[in-house]
């Protein structure tokens, strides 16, 4: 819905493993923690609030929550979370969340996994800028991209 291309992220990856296996790797929290680089408490279940702590070298110890929405094995797993910000002492309870959806489809040679994260247009610009703050990369080309993208939508 966002012609500016700012509302949603979508990624697809073909995994050479059965759909059941991929489902397990994503929804079994012990396995999930390995590739998502987190430590976890509890388990994923519909309606659950799951506490995760980052083990990523960039921010070890950072704590965050995911709010599980749907678990439709072995097809769809979704959660909501607060993107891009965490300020000590700030209550994010009422802040908008983004929706993360994992879709698993059988494909030749394995499983096609589609991940989307959407709802960014509800997130304030300052918050988004916070995500960017540490970024050192050259992003100039992105400007051109957004401009031509938006241009096409006219």
């Amino acid at each position, binding site marked *: 819905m966002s012609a*500016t291309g700012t509302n949603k992220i979508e990624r697809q990856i073909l995994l050479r493993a059965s759909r059941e296996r991929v489902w397990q790797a994503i929804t079994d929290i012990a396995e999930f923690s390995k590739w998502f680089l987190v430590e976890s408490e509890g388990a994923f279940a519909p309606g659950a609030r799951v506490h995760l702590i980052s083990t990523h070298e960039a921010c070890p110890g950072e704590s965050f929550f995911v709010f599980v929405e749907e678990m439709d094995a072995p097809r769809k797993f979704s959660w909501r979370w607060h993107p891009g910000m965490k*300020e000590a002492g700030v209550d994010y309870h009422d802040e908008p969340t983004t929706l993360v959806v994992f879709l698993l489809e059988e494909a030749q040679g394995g499983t096609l996994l589609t991940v989307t994260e959407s709802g960014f*247009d509800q997130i*304030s*610009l300052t918050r988004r800028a916070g995500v960017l703050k*540490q970024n050192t990369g050259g992003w100039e080309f*992105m400007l051109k991209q957004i401009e031509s993208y938006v241009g096409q939508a006219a």
Partner: protein
Amino acid sequence: MSARRPSARRFGGGPEILSSVPVFAALGDETRLRLVARLCAGEPLSITQLSSGAEVTRQAITKHLHVLARAGVVRGAREGRQQLWLLEPRPLREARRCLELIGRQWDEALGRLKTLLESETPSE
């Protein structure tokens, strides 16, 4: 190759920025998106120009422009007696960058998932 990774929060660390700034929902409206799209050409446009071909009234267009201006996406400028409107590219650019960055973190996470799954001994 991963010496200095940009990092946003949950996959990586988060720089902390506080805000009570208006949300970016400004773009979640078709008329406003269209206005932004037209201003993306770079040239300042008047209300008259921006209203031409639109299905809504000039007043409505004006209202939408003010919403966009409050979100920092466009700004008004006077030229003689005429009010012109221009795009502020920075907010869009930053919003876009932000997604790129988060997208890259998804790429990395999914890459790790792939490695995990495909390094297993194939059983069937």
